[in-house]
């Protein structure tokens, strides 16, 4: 059995679809209208989609519930939403719109029991944990606040804590984000060895062969791509694409 999940990962800021590079807020590219993007990924039969609002937590805002509701009602793909979720009430509200999964990140470091609380109420399959990682002196540290705050928590300790509860772990490499120079393979192998919940990796995927390479190494893996699915060509013109047939053909599944 081989399960390879190929997932567009979309970043929103102030309701716009944007693309970051190295998490640098001064280096944002406006991509377009988020609802329009979701419609295009629908038409391209995207198998799942991840949406992260990077403006919610840093600006101390609640998730934009009305936008999330609109996205959910037009999506024919399973959605995982993250950004600004701090309470069970937020999470339940978002799931009630038909969003499959909510993702928490910074809230984990503000409230020790939040993951356990969420999972016991809404089930582990609906709760993903997303973390942004940066390597310092050979250890991977978890950063929050769009890469600005070092939580000083080391990855391997963190994994032990969350894998009893979470339904999925999404790891992003800050050093590779938006670079399109290829993913951090050391980070991926490091985590995959220890994990007993589904892993989704993102950050740096720049060509189809990067996806193929990672998918061939691991039986059960999710690959999430931002830049690769919103840019096209050598000049990185904005063009939403999702070459799933080519990927499946190369993977032969």
């Amino acid at each position, binding site marked *: 059995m081989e399960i*390879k999940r190929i997932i567009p990962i979309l970043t929103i800021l102030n309701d716009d679809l944007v693309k970051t590079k190295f998490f640098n807020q001064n280096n944002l590219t406006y991509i377009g209208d988020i609802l329009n993007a979701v419609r295009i990924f629908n038409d391209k039969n995207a*198998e799942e989609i991840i949406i992260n609002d990077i403006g919610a937590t840093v600006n101390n805002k609640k998730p934009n519930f009305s936008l999330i509701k609109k996205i959910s009602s037009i999506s*024919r793909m399973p959605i995982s939403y993250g950004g600004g979720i701090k309470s069970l009430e937020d999470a339940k509200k978002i799931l009630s719109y038909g969003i499959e*999964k909510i993702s928490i990140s910074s809230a984990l470091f503000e409230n020790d029991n939040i993951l356990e609380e969420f999972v016991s109420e809404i*089930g582990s*399959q609906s709760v993903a944990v997303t973390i942004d990682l940066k390597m310092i002196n050979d250890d991977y540290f978890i950063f929050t606040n769009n890469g600005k705050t070092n939580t000083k928590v080391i990855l391997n300790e963190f994994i032990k804590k969350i894998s009893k509860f979470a*339904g999925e772990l999404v790891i992003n490499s800050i050093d590779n984000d938006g670079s399109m120079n290829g993913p951090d393979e050391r980070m991926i192998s490091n985590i995959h060895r220890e994990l007993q*919940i*589904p892993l989704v990796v993102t950050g740096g995927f720049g060509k189809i062969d990067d996806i193929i390479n990672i998918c061939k190494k691991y039986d059960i893996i999710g690959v999430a791509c931002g830049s690769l699915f919103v840019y096209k060509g050598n000049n990185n013109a904005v063009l939403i694409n999702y070459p799933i047939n080519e990927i499946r053909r190369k993977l032969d599944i």
Partner: protein
Amino acid sequence: MIGIISYGLGNTMAIRNILNDIGDNAELINDPNQIDTKIDKLILPGVGSFDSAMQLLKEKNFIEPIKMFVKNKNNFLLGICVGMQILANSSEEGKKEGLSLIPGKIKKFKNAKILPHVGWNKVTKLREVELLRDIKENSKFYFLHSYYYEVEAKNHIAASSSYFTDFTSIVINKNIFGVQFHPEKSHQSGKMLLKNFARINGN
């Protein structure tokens, strides 16, 4: 007409949107009194745990009306994901009694290295099934679950899938259907399956 039971779990909107797309009117059923003679099909969606689904159905007084509904053989019921699992008698996930419409027990995957089982996976039919009409053999559907349906009677198993072990992905007992995957999130194949359900004719 098709009714979609809206009890706080599952993607009722996505299901309704797809049914509208294929030209079927579907009504969201918030109250058991809405299950009247004009409703001849019910969809029971679900996300979350077995006990929370049963608890919500109980609180909203849906349990007896659903059981009454399927006693009429011209009526049809489709359970999705946890909505399928609660068709069983009980679950390892919780303590509550299920709807007991298709004998069996919900069990946790034992040998799975990674749980939950999430993503697109193949569905293989074990016999001719109206729900899968015009859908290519071994088509993939979207799954998200850690528990599976251990069906008592082999003739109730209509299709199976594989995740570290083979498990039942479609159960059918006469006019009662259950799918472990999410047709409302499975693009063309899922849409076709819902269309097939909408077209099933009791007479």
